[in-house]
């Protein structure tokens, strides 16, 4: 019976109902109804940063339902969990659409839900009142700016944390399977066959001579890795794996961060360079 709520609580609840409760006077509380603690708070106008949106929108409005062990769609929007539940996370209702897609508010499910044109279900906040356009525009701006967690903090770029094969490694098989690990989950919606390029290098000049046809994939269960598989068996030689310069083909993380070394200049980023000796 310890799982059943205590009788004392029921007694209190009935007593309160008999008094037919009045609304609280809000003494010592912020506008979200939480006790005011030193620093922080929800004062000041809404601005296009995560902390402000959390305190003006998510906490006071959304957590009426989206919190705790009963949060609809498993979406928890309290201050501790909101960022991790939103940014780069596929929505449950339309898994192909991220709840927040950094840099792309139009393709962020949260925007579709609060504007009322999502593919599934009712406009949020459920039952209204709906967010005014100025508030929606501020959330859009935050997403356009990369949906960063810190207010204006410069985010670390996406970094390669592991690569296989490493430079100077020898591959045992002609049909190569290259795997790169990254510091953040990859934005799979931006990946296509042009996101990386495998090139065979001229042994004399070291310059690329032949592009190699590859397929790319993100391994199931490991969204921080990228697998590059050659379409045909390779011959002996030296190869390099690069990310092309064109920013639209970008390899980027779900937070919108681009690869380390990818700057405004159209320069390919070298991921890997290795020798291949095919076993006979």
């Amino acid at each position, binding site marked *: 019976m310890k*799982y*059943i*709520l205590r009788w004392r*609580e*029921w007694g*209190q*609840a*009935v007593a*309160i*109902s008999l008094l*037919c*409760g*009045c*609304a*609280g*006077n*809000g*003494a*010592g*509380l*912020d*506008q*979200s*109804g*939480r*006790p005011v603690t030193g620093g922080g708070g929800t004062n000041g106008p809404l601005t296009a940063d995560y902390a402000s949106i959390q305190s003006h929108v998510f906490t*006071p*409005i959304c957590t*009426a*339902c989206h*919190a*705790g*062990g*009963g*949060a*609809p*769609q*498993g979406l*928890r929007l*309290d*201050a*501790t*969990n909101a960022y991790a539940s939103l940014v780069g996370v*596929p929505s*449950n*209702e339309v898994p192909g659409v991220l709840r927040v897609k950094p840099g792309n508010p139009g393709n962020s499910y949260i925007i579709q839900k609060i504007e*009322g044109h*999502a*593919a*599934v*279900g*009712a*406009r949020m906040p*459920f*039952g*209204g*009142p*709906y967010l*005014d356009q100025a508030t929606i525009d501020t959330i859009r701006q935050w997403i356009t700016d990369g949906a960063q967690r810190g207010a204006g903090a410069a985010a670390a770029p996406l970094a390669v944390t592991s690569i296989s094969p490493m430079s100077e490694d020898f591959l045992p098989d002609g049909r190569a399977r290259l795997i790169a690990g990254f510091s953040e989950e990859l934005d799979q919606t931006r990946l296509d066959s042009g996101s990386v390029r495998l090139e065979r290098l001229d042994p004399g000049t070291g310059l690329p001579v032949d592009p190699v046809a590859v397929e790319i994939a993100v391994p199931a269960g490991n969204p921080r890795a990228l697998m590059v598989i050659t379409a045909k068996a390779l011959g002996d030689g030296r190869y390099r794996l690069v990310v092309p310069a064109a920013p639209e083909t970008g390899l980027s993380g779900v937070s919108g961060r681009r690869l380390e070394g990818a700057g405004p200049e159209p320069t390919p980023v070298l991921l890997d360079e290795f020798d291949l000796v095919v076993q006979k």
Partner: protein
Amino acid sequence: MTIHVVFRLLLTLACAVGSWTVACAEPYLAVQQGYKCAACHVNATGGGLRTEFGIVFAENVLPARTLPEGVPVWTGRVGDFLRLGGDLRTNWTRTELTGAKPQQTFQIDQVRAYAAMDIVPERFSVYVDEQIAPGNATAMEAWARLTDASSGTYLKAGRLYLPFGWRLQDQTAFVRETSGISMATPDTGLELGFEREHWSAQLAVSHGTANAGQESGHQVTSQVVWVQSRYRLGGAVSLTQSDAGNRRAGALFAGVRTGPVAWLGEIDLVRDGGVPEGSRSMIAMLGEANYRIRKGHNLKLTAEYLDPDRRVAEDQQTRWSALYEYTPMPFLQLRAGLRRYRGIPQSVLENRRVAFIELHGFW
């Protein structure tokens, strides 16, 4: 003997029997008539597709005026094995917030289509409740049900509304938002039901709405209702195991009829272990009076109370509503109402005023 006469005989017989089963997306009707939910709804816990008796009730008892004799009327039955139905709610809403421009919206609140296929009548059926709008079509309920009429038990599996407290039409009522269990939050799992003359009980084991997208966690929900012709008492519990934190909820609810007034009450207690400060206890209450002024006219008054965190003083909220429901003819209802929210003064949202007019078509 016309089909109308047959239906009226059916209705009279049902009223005489009294404690059959009826209507719960507007549960005051069940309290007013002394029925259980399953009399008017295919779903034993209420809401969704109406039974043949529910359609007869909607045609003859609810409206101010019935249709003239001989007018063809929808019965919901298509052939021997299929029943169809639906609901359409469209409304105009005006919300006033202190210091902000009033917000007015016309919107389709919901369009639902229901279908029940009696594959083996009274033994095995399949049911779908599809929300057609807003948004693309999505299944709110989709289940298969095995029924054993001799023992009054059934087992259904699929996507279903969990049995917990009054299944209100207003999904934004404090008791529905706080419990997190409503007709807006269906879940996937199994429900074992037990229906006897004066008892209705369900036990559901489901994945848990908070566990959507996760591979772990579950929710166990159970409800027992004792139904008499003039009153009923119910209790429900729900236990959610989730990576987000466990949640325990309990509800006591009751309904009683005094003359033309049907009274509903519910108290929900929720303890949630998935909040940033560790755990939080909440209380939500509902009191509702439905005054049947005359046939086709209902005045609904509700008072609600919410304490969103019992450890925090002076954060309570109230919500008062006055609604008039006019059903001029079968299958059509007009609703107009005012809601007044009161909460802490520093929250604009908790002190809003809402006016609405709704057109509800049902069949």
